[in-house]
């Protein structure tokens, strides 16, 4: 079994916080770029953070799209003692997707076979906080979940989330990110659906058709005077904007869509703040109880504990 020990020393912790501060909005920083490219090993190796925990960081900060999450990162890193194993924190954080009293998916899955299968997955994640769980047990939990959900289209998104939760985070740390992405998508869909000015099915389809048509029209107009490669994003958006504004009827669809997106983003920000708060609470609670924290000065790289 391999463990990651956070930071190694105080200097490393300060350097991680400073690094994030210096790079500005997280959207432009290495956390996002590396995680999208699929390689977050830099964060794990240099700062001793469990790969699953490292992958949660961009998700918890909304990939920088909605806000500056630096104060949250600072508080979170401050709550993690030097030398702590952040694997358990990652597992507890992903469990929120099921257990959170306000936003957890347990709120929307009715009693029955699917719920029982979901609870089976949750039990395995809980078990994995303290001891390794056999690969066969994860597979069996997924198989049970799939069988129980067969044909239930209404729970498709939640089942996808729970299927992502049913992985050993030591072997597949990216599953933590899958869970958060699925949870974000579910919350976002609910925010859109409950909007005061939600599009009807017909309006949604019409908006998408108009948007695609206008994008094509703009690209064709710009491509008449230059090569496709030389067209900049800003000038493309400028032309797109002109075409929308020229037709008040279809521009009204865009206005409504933008207003709805702003309202949904506000709801997502409330959700994210709640989850960030809960993750900080978990960190404070769990690390206050831990006694196996290593002293300062231990190198942050992975330690092979297989002989223990």
């Amino acid at each position, binding site marked *: 079994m391999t463990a990651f020990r956070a930071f190694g020393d105080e200097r490393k912790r300060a350097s991680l916080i400073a690094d994030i501060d210096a790079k500005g909005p997280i959207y432009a920083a290495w956390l996002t770029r590396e995680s999208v490219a699929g390689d977050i090993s830099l964060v794990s190796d240099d700062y001793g953070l469990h790969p699953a925990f490292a992958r949660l960081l961009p998700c918890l900060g909304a990939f920088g799209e909605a806000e500056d999450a630096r104060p949250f990162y600072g508080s979170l890193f401050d709550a993690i003692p030097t030398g702590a194993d952040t694997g358990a924190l990652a597992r507890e954080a992903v469990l929120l997707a099921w257990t959170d009293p306000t936003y957890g998916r347990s709120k929307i899955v009715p009693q029955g076979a699917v719920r029982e299968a979901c609870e089976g997955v949750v039990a395995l994640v809980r078990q994995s906080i303290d001891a390794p769980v056999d690969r066969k047990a994860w597979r069996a939990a997924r198989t049970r979940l799939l069988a129980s959900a067969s044909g239930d289209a209404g729970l498709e998104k939640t089942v996808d989330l729970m299927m992502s*939760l049913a992985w050993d985070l030591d072997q597949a740390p990216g599953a933590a990110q*899958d869970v958060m992405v699925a949870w974000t998508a579910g919350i976002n869909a609910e925010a859109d659906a409950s909007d005061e000015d939600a599009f009807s099915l017909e309006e949604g389809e019409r908006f998408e058709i108009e948007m695609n048509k206008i994008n094509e029209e703009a690209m064709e107009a710009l491509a008449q005077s230059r090569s496709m490669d030389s067209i900049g994003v800003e000038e493309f958006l400028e032309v797109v904007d002109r075409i929308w504004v020229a037709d008040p009827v279809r521009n009204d669809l865009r206005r409504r869509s933008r207003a709805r997106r702003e309202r949904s983003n506000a709801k997502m920000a409330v959700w994210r703040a709640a989850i960030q708060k809960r993750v900080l609470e978990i960190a404070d609670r769990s690390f206050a109880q831990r006694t196996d924290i290593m002293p300062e000065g231990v190198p942050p790289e992975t330690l092979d504990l297989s002989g223990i």
Partner: protein
Amino acid sequence: MSKLKDVTTAEFETEVLCSPIPVLVDFHAVWCGPCKASAPALEDAAREFEGEIAFVKVDVDQEAEIAEAYDVQGVPTFILIKDGQPVERFQGLVSRGKLAGVLEQFVGDGK
């Protein structure tokens, strides 16, 4: 960088069509962001299903003939081939949950 093997047109028959176990073919392109983002999930799934399902990649720009033969219109496109025949097909960024949901139907009791 994905560790899965890129197969060429010349290798496709041996590696995929004649494989004794199902093969998930990832039709990708080097310029495709969602293809890169899907790579870690594919590698995890490849480890999980080792010996049960094989995983290979096909670069649609380099191996246009195969992509055309399977009517690949966008990337990433994933096609599961069993006994030389496509049995499942899906497109876009994939999660481990989604991959497991599809692949577990073709292993163990679901074979």
